């Protein structure tokens, strides 16, 4: 009875939508997995929409499951495996920077998880200093990462995807220290962009079409910028942006904290040009975080920090 009441309250609040035009929630959130004693977070849709990858508390370990929450399978129990992991373009593999700790030292390595072969493969040796995160290139054949001083490219050993070539197909985007780098996978050349000079960029999110990037400024707001460095748009307060499949919108979170704990977090959607900002969740007792937009454009996966569970809600325009 109490649980039912609580969930009704939660869902009723979540179904409330903003008055202005834009995305709205059309179906109450459905819990997929997690809870006390088995807390999960940070769900990410596979590009084909069939699966979700996610991690445990503290980004320890990596799991996948079907998009309906069934068939959960652990790929890794390694520390840090769940931070910054990325799906391959064909949804058949994941890449992450895993860590191990020996005495006081941290050792990092790039690891690929092949879901078809059900095997994982180290692409780099373990190193104490690895300040970049690995990313897939468009065709899925290569993985790139900015290392201490250079752009490092790994061959995945997989067959290249057959894609409709666009001008942006070879674009790569990564954080070089605290700046944004845009380059070409075929040449390895890149240029560094500093959209707000002197400021530190983080949580870089390239749009699926590779024409724009979203990012946060440390101690500042969330922004969108064209990959040539033009068209900077200040989107205001926001964290951990993720693009809609058409590259038009972003889903993200706005958190409140007291310097010790996150006290509240709600999910929002906004156009890349700063218009049509809509709040998706309105709860007082749930801390909704880490949204991810499904490839069909109709669903948002997210986690509730104080539940330790992953949910999906349906949206439409």
């Amino acid at each position: 009875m109490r649980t039912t009441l609580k969930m009704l309250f939660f869902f009723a609040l979540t179904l409330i939508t903003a008055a202005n035009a834009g995305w709205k929630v059309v179906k109450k959130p459905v819990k997929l997995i997690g809870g006390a004693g088995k807390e999960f977070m940070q769900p990410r849709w596979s590009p084909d929409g069939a699966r979700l990858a996610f991690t445990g508390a503290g980004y320890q370990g990596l799991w996948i499951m079907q998009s309906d929450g069934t068939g959960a399978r652990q790929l890794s129990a390694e520390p840090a495996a769940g931070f910054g992991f990325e799906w391959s373009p064909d949804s058949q593999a994941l890449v992450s920077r895993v860590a191990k700790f020996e005495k006081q030292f941290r050792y990092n390595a790039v690891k690929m998880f092949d879901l078809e072969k059900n095997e994982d493969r180290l692409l780099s040796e373990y190193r104490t200093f690895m300040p970049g995160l690995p990313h897939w290139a468009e065709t899925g054949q290569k993985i790139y990462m900015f290392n201490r001083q250079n752009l490092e490219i790994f061959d995945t050993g997989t067959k290249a995807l057959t894609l409709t070539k666009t001008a942006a197909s070879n674009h790569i985007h990564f954080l070089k220290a605290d700046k944004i780098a845009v380059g070409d996978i075929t040449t390895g050349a890149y240029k560094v962009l500093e959209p707000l000079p002197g400021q530190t960029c983080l949580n870089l999110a390239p749009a699926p079409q590779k024409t724009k990037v979203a990012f946060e400024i440390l101690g500042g707001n969330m922004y969108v910028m064209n990959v040539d460095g033009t068209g900077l748009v200040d989107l205001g307060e926001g964290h951990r942006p993720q693009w809609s499949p058409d590259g038009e919108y972003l889903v993200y979170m706005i958190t409140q904290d007291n310097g010790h704990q996150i006290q509240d977090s709600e999910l929002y959607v906004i156009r890349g040009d700063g218009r049509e900002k809509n709040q998706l969740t309105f709860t007082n007792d749930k801390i909704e975080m880490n949204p991810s937009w499904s490839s069909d454009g109709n669903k948002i996966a997210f986690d509730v920090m104080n539940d330790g569970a992953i949910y999906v809600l349906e949206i439409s325009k």
Partner: protein
Amino acid sequence: MKLVLTLILAILPFSELSAQVTGLAGWNIFLDPGHSQKENMGIYGYSEAEKNLRVALALRDLLLQTTDIDTVYISRTNDQQSVSLTQRTDYANSLGAAWYHSIHSDAGSATANSTLLLWGQYRDGREKIPNGGKAISAPIVNLLTRGMRTTTRGAIGDCSFYGCTFDGPYLHVNRESTMPSELSEAGFHTNPTQNQRNMNAEWKKLEARTLYWAILQFHGIARPVAGFCAGIITDLESGVPVNGAQITLHGQTYTTDTFQSLFSKYTSDPNLLHNGFYYFDNLPQTTLDLIVTAEGYGGDTSQVAVVDTFFTFKDIQLISNVPPVVLNSTPTPGDTRFPAWADLIIDFSRRMNRASVETALTLTPEVAKTFVWSNNNMRLRIHKDSLQTETDYTLTIAGSAQGQYEHRLDGNGDGRGGDDFVLHFKTGPPDLRAPLLTAVYPLDNSTAVELQPILNMRFDEALDPASITAGIFNLERFRDVPTVEGTLKHYRVGNESVLCFFPAQPLTAARFYIARIFPGLQDGFGNKIASQQMFRFTTGNATFATTNLDNFEANLNSNWFVPQQSGSTTGIITEKTSRESNTNVVNLLTTSTTSMQVNYGWDANAGAWLIRQYLSGGPPRQVLFNSSYILQVYVFGDGSGNQFRFAVDDNIPIESASNHEVSPWYTIDWIGWRQVSWDMSAGSTGTWIGDGKLDGTLRFDSIQLTYNPGSATEGTIYFDDLRLLRKTSVGVDEPAATLPSAFALHQNYPNPFGSAATSPALSGGNLETTIRYQIPGERQHVVLTVYDMTGKIVKTLVNAEKAAGDYTIRWDGKNADGQPVASGTYLYKITAGEFVQTKRMTLVR
């Protein structure tokens, strides 16, 4: 990075280069100065966030400049950034940092000051993965505590410290960082001493240095030669740190902070802030001469042996060479209302030679006196026989009085010792105490109060009518009606006063009301009530049909006997006993213009006492009823302690002396108006002539009074609006009275609250705030707790099983120890089953 490091090393002094530490290659650390901008303001205006940043920057410099560490990351670098918790951990995680250390200070009461290390811990007690935070916490807390020269609460898992309601860890920086982590609390920024020291630039290097040494120790790296000397310069007598002291050591000179150099950033009072802190580094391991000078003090020269393993602490106490002065006195100069019976108190600026002061002190006119010294002979209390009231006095302490170190008293404050201190004052009148509120009706926190109560406030002495102004009283219906309209009436009864408030309309059923008496009421001597008085009550929900018996507006003489006409009346002094009409003391709840006044005089030597104020005829005597009714009358009491009761005849129409029945006695211990009811359906009766049963048809007989031995033998009682009531329904016309259909935690009211807060209903401060919450359905175990912004429990207000209902709880701004908490934002959180909700409130003192 290496290029930057090389450049930095190139400009370092040789001593630092020679202290190059190896063993950190391949390692890096993410430093997180907690909070942002000027968050978590310290007690004297220096924030935790500013302190944390400077400690982090100093530690970063130490690690980069003196070790072979790969790099040091930092979550913010200035006081302008506002960095969220998720950005801090996202940045560290993105960089793949090897370690995460968050730098903080603590908050609490002004007397609390200790260190604390919090490592990441799961709810089941295990250390978070990856491990390491717990292991490094041990050396950190040890060195940090020694460096801060305070106590410690130890190194504790964060779930154990705070209590986790989820899997944990509790602290975000421990929960979402992918590397070993911990958080250090270096003392309390709410502690006055710590906050003033935190302002000093070098003091923060102590904290950074202890963290640096702990990192080296954790890595098994030998600590480089220390060569530091630091300490506090204080005034020997007052213990107050000395501003502007100059300390010379090994050819270097350090000047302690002054108002001009530092403290003017935080206060306009040049005497408020002091830390007395000094700091030297790069010292050789040997014994050195330490020379301290300060304006207004004798100098000090000592030796200090610089140790090679830690900070060398050397505190110095200086003796002032400024003549002692009188800082404060009670009475203050020129006081014209000093209580004749009170002690005189003199506070000196320095410790005094007791014998010299006592010899030098005179009080004119002369009175016998004794002396009590305290506060290290800096406070003198002069205990004496009571002075004469409204008389001029002069207290003199001759300039021959001396301080402990033979400095003569500077009585006139001209900076030179040897002159007299002279204090003129005048004693006040005999009464210097403000009126005291001794009783209220309805009682504070009472429930099921009638819907038309007369609010009654009794004071122990007569009030000055001029002080009873329009805004002196307010009745509020909580949350939605700031002021309930009505009439406030003052009555003086003997040497006491009573204020009666007559609401203009019936109150609302089942609602919470707050009555407030604001400061300003005073007695005839001008002694004012200085603080707000308040009482609260909740109305019932019963409504009644009313039948008037007699409102005493007319025909008093024809309807009612005088007391002596009844043969039952006995034990009176007849010339002092009477019944009459009164048009001044009436019940303003109704349209009454006249009441029945009964004057009584008892013969204390009689064996029995009764006044039977008999209803002899007229329409009131024609009213018949039965025992299902309530008999009610408004009684203006005299507070005498004598008694009153109702009498009825039963078994009407049979007329018989044995048919007289009575209510229990009601002791008249109140003054002013009060509604008195006899619920005859409850079956409670008193003893007189009848059988104690209310049989058949009833008729009103009389109001009766009796003497309660030991009580007043003379007095006056007024009666108004004698009537019958019959309960008609249980009326509920407010949603608040219905059972809630959902959980709810409402915003506290008023908000902000506290002595400096105001609301439309108040001219003064709201010393407490009320929190309303609703519980639906089944019984729930409810916990409602107030937290500070660091997540620490301030006080648990509710921890009990609660049935479905609408509840309110009040918080007076005090912690669990009963101590007032500081101004600021607080959280209150309710947990009822699986319902959890948190809201914020603001306390402004």
